[in-house]
């Protein structure tokens, strides 16, 4: 076996570099509220379709609302952080609050085909491209 090529740690480093590299991408620059809105979103392509992966640690399913149409997705909800009574707080880095973010995608999506999965604080949205938006192969006669 050639060391390095199949090493899973290398795979992670490669993925991290790729994620970092895409941060400069202007793919959504004109269409969304831009960077800095909560929650942060990573968008991936999988064949014709898209996958959005969003980190929402501590947000429970019941406090999350998702909406989709034509080419926009909106994610809203709230995150609460509690400390119980009579506790003295030593360190407070987690924040609580509400959020509402709308992402406009540069493609037409199939809102009925979206699948959402919330697990271990990660929301994964499987977003199929609308049939009308898929590229067609043009036959040359």
């Amino acid at each position, binding site marked *: 076996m050639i060391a390095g090529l199949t090493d*899973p*740690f290398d*795979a*992670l*480093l490669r*993925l*991290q570099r*790729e*994620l*970092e590299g*895409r*941060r400069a*991408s202007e*793919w*959504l620059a004109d269409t969304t509220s831009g*960077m*800095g*809105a*909560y*929650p*942060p*979103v*990573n*968008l*991936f*392509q*999988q064949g014709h379709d*898209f*996958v959005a992966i969003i*980190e*929402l*640690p*501590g*947000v*429970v399913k019941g406090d999350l609302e998702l909406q989709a149409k034509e080419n926009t997705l909106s994610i809203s909800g709230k*995150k*609460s*952080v509690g*400390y*119980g009574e*009579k*506790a*003295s*707080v*030593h*360190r*407070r*880095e*987690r*924040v*609580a*609050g*509400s*959020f509402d973010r709308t992402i406009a995608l540069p493609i037409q999506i199939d809102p009925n085909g979206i699948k959402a999965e*919330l697990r*271990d*604080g*990660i929301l*994964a949205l499987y977003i199929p491209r609308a049939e009308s938006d898929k590229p067609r192969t043009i036959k040359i006669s």
Partner: protein
Amino acid sequence: MARGQELQVQEKRELQGKDESTIPTRSFVPLTDIYETDQALTVVMEMPGVEKANLDVHLENDVLSVAGRIDFSKYENLQPVYTEYNIGHYRRTFSLAPNHVAQEKIKAEMNDGVLTLTLPKAERAKARRIAVK
């Protein structure tokens, strides 16, 4: 409290310093809350993407260290087109007051990507009320 307030993105802090790992990947520092009652010290850490099985909590010589590995195999067939955050394993270490915690009673719970560690205080560390005569 911040309830009802608009949430802001907190940029992930990369793990740095002497605690370098042998593997060339980036690790991140989980956002942590620590609070104390007269019974216990509670440590709450945000580690989205970490499953229970991939969590490692260690207390030795009054040093609490927590490591969480993420499963990045699900990213295998995904081509990033637009990204706002990076992913990586999580690691963080805290020094506790000496002999403060009853080691054998530590409880760990993982819910929605948030780890809650309850470290009950050792008997002798609990505050005693001193009666004034």
